């Protein structure tokens, strides 16, 4: 099974209010201006007015970044859109690395005043393609070994739990929780 269009969402601590989101807009505009990285960043879309919505989205060509509230769970989300070469592990690592790098940048961004912090434990992982990865038992059977391999690496062999969303209409989604907290920096170095 080819796992493409990986989305990684790193859940943040505490409640996120409208005021917390507002400074994110100029931050994302600066990312577009500076374009550091090998992805093309294009525009910023503001969906703060939508309940349980994508929040603020940084639209890119290869991927979108967002502070996303889908499922009423706030998190920093990386949504890989462009097809990526390599193995499934390569693609899982790439998405996680991109999400963690973004998270790290946002955590230390002075304009956000430290309000956005990874909660250290919870990660959601989606495959954003229903035909390539329908949310069913076959996909789970095929993807689970890859996911387990990836999360063992991500959490440096430490304990974690993984559960899969059963709603058939949902994207193929894994909810993962580490037994102990990690910082974004620690997880990034585990993927190095």
């Amino acid at each position: 099974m080819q796992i493409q269009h990986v989305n990684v969402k790193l859940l943040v601590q505490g409640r996120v209010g409208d005021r917390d989101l507002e400074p994110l807009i100029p931050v994302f505009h600066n990312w577009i201006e500076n374009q550091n990285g090998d992805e093309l960043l294009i525009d910023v879309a503001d969906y703060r007015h939508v309940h349980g919505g994508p929040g603020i989205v940084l639209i890119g060509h290869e991927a979108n970044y967002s502070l996303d509230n889908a499922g009423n769970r706030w998190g920093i989300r990386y949504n890989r859109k462009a097809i990526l070469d390599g193995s499934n592990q390569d693609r899982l690592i790439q998405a996680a690395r991109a999400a963690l790098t973004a998270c790290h940048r946002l955590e230390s961004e002075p304009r956000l005043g430290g309000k956005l912090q990874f909660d250290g434990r919870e990660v959601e992982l989606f495959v954003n393609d229903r035909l390539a990865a329908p949310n069913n038992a076959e996909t789970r059977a095929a993807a689970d070994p890859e996911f387990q391999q990836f999360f063992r690496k991500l959490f440096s062999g430490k304990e974690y739990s993984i559960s899969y969303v059963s709603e058939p209409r949902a994207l193929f989604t894994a909810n993962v929780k580490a037994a102990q907290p990690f910082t974004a920096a620690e997880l990034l170095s585990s993927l190095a």
Partner: protein
Amino acid sequence: MKVSNPLWAERLAGKMPEALAREIDIFETEIALRKQGKIDERLFAETRLRRGTYGQRYDNGQRHNGKTVQRLGYPSGELTKGPNTMWDAPGMQRIKIPAGGLNAEQLETLADLAEEYSDGIAHVTTRQDFQLHYVHIEDTPSIMRRLAAVKITTREACGNSVRNVTACPYAGVCPDEVFDVTPYSRALSKFLLGHPDTQNFGRKFKHSFSGCSQHACGLASMHDMGMIAVKRVEKGEEKRGFEVYVGGGLGAVPYQAKLFDSFVPQEELLPLAQSVGRIFAALGEKKNRSRARIKFLVQDLGIEKFKELVLDDRKNLPHDPRWTDYIKDAEQFHEAPLRSGGKPPLLGTESFQRWVKSNTRAQKQEGYVVVTITLPLGDITANQLRALADIARRFTKETIRSTVEQNIVLRWVSQSDLAELHTALEAVGLGEPGAGTIVDVAACPGTDTCKLGISSSRGLAAELRKRLEEKNYELDECIQNLHIKISGCFNSCGQHHVADLGFYGVSRKMSGYAVPHFQVVLGGEWEHNGASYGLPVIAIPSKNIPEVVARLTERYATNRKNGESFKEFVARTGKVELKKMLEDLARPPADSSDRSFFQDWDDPREYTLSDLGVGECAGEVVSSVEFDLAAAERQLFEAQVAFEGGQIEQAGKTAYRSMVQAAKALVKIEASNIADDPGLIVGEFRTRFYDTQRFFDPFAGGKFAHYLFAAHEKANQPQTADSTRYLIDEAQLFIDAAHSCYNRIGAPATA
């Protein structure tokens, strides 16, 4: 871009009409050929537009970051999907929903598409369509196939074609309707889709259906062809028919539709629409796009001549059995409820009561209501769409419609289910009250995604919603019922002309900087099928618009006489007084260090007009151009006042002079001693600004210059009230364009 793209054709084989599947296959081939450079970019652009696949802002590969123009280095290099439209640039996919009718499966498909190909949001437009933004061109065939499998097409959603046929969302359940127009709107939509007689238009064509004349309903007055249900008795038998209007349209200069016929029998509906299309295709303007809508053809010919041509054509049309086949079951058409009708709910909480008051309306069928689901700015998430599908299945037989107010309605809801339904909606954030009230601000996408956007309509709409929501329940009821509509530019996609308080984006220079503004347009009428259009009063910086709304609504609430409508209040107060009320808001802020004034809503970048232009600082000195343009605006205002006072001839002459004045302002940049001779001024303007294309707007081209030339040509001819009204609108647009031209030139002469 999606890895699954090659798989959908096989997966959905047999699940859609063969002809539609073949067409999508052809489009996919065209995409491949374009990538190989084997199809001309202009041809490809028209072909994708006819499938609802639009460009978006920044698709020319450039983006102004507030300081400088930044190149966006798309991986596909110089490959384009149209003139100046980069291949990889995110686009918009428009999805037609005839009469707004949807079922649960279709909502779920829209949810999946929003999630997989867009940004997780589906947007309801002011024409009952859906739109997905930030879509890659190579994903569009998959999108089209998945929609086709649930009987939705994107075909002719854009381009020079018959667009979505809209209809009143209460058709079939409204106590005031004459009869249910739903089957007729569907029949017309099906009949005209891909019809050979609709493939050679010079511009788009929009139809709508209303069940009555007195409510907003289908907004017949502002459509190319609007139908209002009527009945009459013939030989003792009641017959169904339509009052048919043609030649309406908003756009830059709004036109009221003219009555074509007070009774067109139902069996004549489709052939009549066909003949109207044929005359439009044959005689409509094709080269000058700014005059290519049918409203100009009807205006130029006059309604009687137009009607004569259409009826002549109708007589000679070869018979098409579909004219009657498609409507043969129309009189038997009906929807049915899932659950039995019930009694109204007990009072419930305050928030529930508020929601019932604003978001439900009684159906003619006892025990049932229509429930409106308020969508902030017309946006709904994938998860909300799925939840709504479940709710529709649980409480109704999936009788769902989108509305032109950018909401969704659920019909056939039993009154006794309201509390439970509300709870279910609230759980997914769809239980907001305020549908159709002042907080339910409608806005086009504007500068968020549209290439033509001048000011941020959605940014302003979001700000107004927030402020009005905070105090909505304290507001006088007369204010609560007002309509606010916002367009990002003069093209009226936000339908600002028919709002009580309408706004459209313009740009002005202040203290040497370009500043986003909105023209305040007052006195439009939403009811009676969009019966009348507002006139622009004054341009105000975007950041001051909330104060404009506050002042106008407060004044209305305190000064209202004898229950007058807002439109009547505007007429009675008069534009001189209204302008005076707002004038101070048109000035730059006292604190020049406050840079937020020079940024649009929720956009930290310094505002500019386009990705190519640069807003320049000219210090605090006021140039003679600015003085002269201000004089032009003052003259135009005088024209509006004269018009309002019934002095048609004077209004027309003054409007014309205001355009000459604006043209003179620009000419004086190079020929400061030009005499005050209109002929000389218009000639110099043509040579220096039109022939050189310096006056050309990046997106509208030389469109507005034609208004000046036409006005000059007809300067000594008698004018009617209608033609004067159009002239005033055109003068405003010309003056706005003169401002924009000056902003781009960024120059010169000091006072």
